[in-house]
């Protein structure tokens, strides 16, 4: 099958993760990975991002597929249940808002900037080498540290399930995927489709 430009977006994902290692402010670029899928689903009512442009999914597909780093076993039934998928989405939301709260505290001066990356919502990893000061408020850097924590945590989780189950197992419980599918479901309710087809 002919490769298209968007089949190489896994490189963007790799570059993104690497940039955050050297300068944490690049973590802000990750907002694109959050906003683009939402915009696509809200405007066109499709999961076009997951289907074509998700570099993370492509990276897992490549590592687990071509590089053979996956057992290629079925994902457990509970992991693909609606309860787990929506529960994980809610959990991700809570952790995301907690990160926003910490950012707010730094902006308001109630808390100092913490130059750490929180992996899997609990492990504090030193990451001070990636912060070289900023022209902006330290709160801008705090958000970057928090956002990179979210991205690194999801990458690690995705890699673990890639090894244990099928390469793109992350796609099953990816909070962005669940959220965009939810938006698509609401947007494309049966009644709307019938009206659209008329």
């Amino acid at each position, binding site marked *: *099958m002919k490769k298209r430009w968007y089949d190489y977006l896994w490189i963007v994902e790799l570059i993104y993760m690497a940039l955050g290692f050297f300068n944490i402010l690049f973590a802000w670029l990750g907002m694109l990975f959050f906003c683009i899928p939402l915009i696509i*689903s809200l405007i066109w*009512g*499709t*999961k*076009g991002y*997951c*289907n*074509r442009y998700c570099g993370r*999914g492509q990276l897992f*597909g490549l590592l687990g597929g071509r590089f053979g780093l996956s057992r290629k076993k*079925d*994902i457990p039934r509970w992991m*693909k249940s609606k309860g787990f*998928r929506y529960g994980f989405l809610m959990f991700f939301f809570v952790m995301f808002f907690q990160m926003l709260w910490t950012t707010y505290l730094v902006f308001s001066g109630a808390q100092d900037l913490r130059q750490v990356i929180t992996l899997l919502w609990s492990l504090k990893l030193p990451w001070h080498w990636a912060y070289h000061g900023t022209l902006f408020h330290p709160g801008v850097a705090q958000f970057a540290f928090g956002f990179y924590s979210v991205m690194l945590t999801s990458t690690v989780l995705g890699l673990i399930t890639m090894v244990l*189950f*099928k*390469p*793109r*197992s*992350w*796609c*099953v419980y990816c909070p962005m*995927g*669940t959220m*965009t*599918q939810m*938006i*698509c*479901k609401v*947007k*494309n309710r049966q009644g709307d*489709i019938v009206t659209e087809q008329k």
Partner: protein
Amino acid sequence: MKPKMRTRRRAVVDTNACVACGCCVKVCPLSAIRIWHGVWADVDPGRCVGCGKCAKECPASVIAIQEVRA
């Protein structure tokens, strides 16, 4: 002599459990699958030959290859 019943293999998606990730679309050699409005994978029964590539690729393992009457 009993007439021989012709069957063919076809991919069947459990639409209720499908996450619409589109992995199946990418591997289908006959472009027989599309993602219906971002909600589930939809197999074109006329095109599908039941090769099983999509079932193997599906991260949620919600595609089964079934024998259907031709």
